[in-house]
């Protein structure tokens, strides 16, 4: 079980090097086990260096950078243990447009073996989806599904 954990950890770690680089368009990041602790108990530390910037303590990075780093780690785990079905609820909220574009590009690499359900308020993300469903509450407190064309998104849904 110690080997099993270490094997998975090393695989995720390697994937993380790649997913981070792809999502940030450069830079590098790493995960490591806390020093001086048993492999079966040690916590996991994350360090990251966005492109062009110095390696620095994660807390100094921006909200969007920290979110994208975590997404890279989740994708690294996902790559190591693929699931046929993945749901992402508003993970893009803190991301700017070019980060959303890269995020959707990497996500599409997983489409060979996984289907995605993405909940979003962001038009950029919607534009990349294959199908868009709307959920509205025309009657207060009662949810209803409606079909949505991308061009309709915006005022119509917002005031529903």
């Amino acid at each position, binding site marked *: 079980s110690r080997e099993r954990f270490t094997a998975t950890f090393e695989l995720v770690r390697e994937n993380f090097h790649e997913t981070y680089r792809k999502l940030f368009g450069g830079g590098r990041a790493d995960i490591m086990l806390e020093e001086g602790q048993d492999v079966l108990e040690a916590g996991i530390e994350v360090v990251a260096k966005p492109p062009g910037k110095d390696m620095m303590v994660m807390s100094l990075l921006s909200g969007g950078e920290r979110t994208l780093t975590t997404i890279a780690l989740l994708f690294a785990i996902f790559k190591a243990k693929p699931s046929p079905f993945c*749901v992402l609820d508003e993970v893009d909220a803190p991301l700017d447009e070019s980060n959303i574009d890269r995020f959707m590009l990497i996500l599409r690499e997983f489409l060979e073996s996984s289907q*995605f359900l993405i909940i979003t308020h962001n038009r950029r993300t919607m534009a990349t989806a294959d199908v*868009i*469903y709307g959920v509205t*509450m025309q009657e207060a407190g009662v*949810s209803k599904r409606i079909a949505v064309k991308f061009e309709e998104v915006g005022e119509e849904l917002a005031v529903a």
Partner: protein
Amino acid sequence: MFLKRLEVFGFKSFADKTVIDFTGGVTALVGPNGCGKSNVVDSIRWALGEQSARSLRGSEMVDLIFNGTTNRRPLGFAEVVLTFDNSKRPLPVDAAEVSVTRRLYRTGECEYLINGQACRLRDVRDLFMDTGVGVGAYSIIEQGKIDALLQSSPKERRGIFEEAA
């Protein structure tokens, strides 16, 4: 093993039976604040066997049943049906399609069905074991989970890692 259809009735804000058909690719779910998008996510997790009302944002299981509005009376039960494509037999059921039903009554009684056959919660959970889908699935990232991951300590982060991997 893809999810073909989701049917929700009486679960949280879904007072009327709602059907969502999925494609194999990327489906986006959009709409105003509070209209029910995250409730859809909760319904999927619940149907897969999630037992913690708190992790589904309620304080107890009965909170998951439609509790009425100024114009509608509360409902007596919540029901969610997930239908999967099983043509390549990724699930240990000899059928081209597998549907999993979960029902909860206000009395607290729960019913579970696989392809219409009554079964227990653990049968539903066993069905999805090792498929990468199911309770504690690292592949369902609920709203706010990324922030929670960012706030967590190294030990907590490991906990999530172990759940996933």
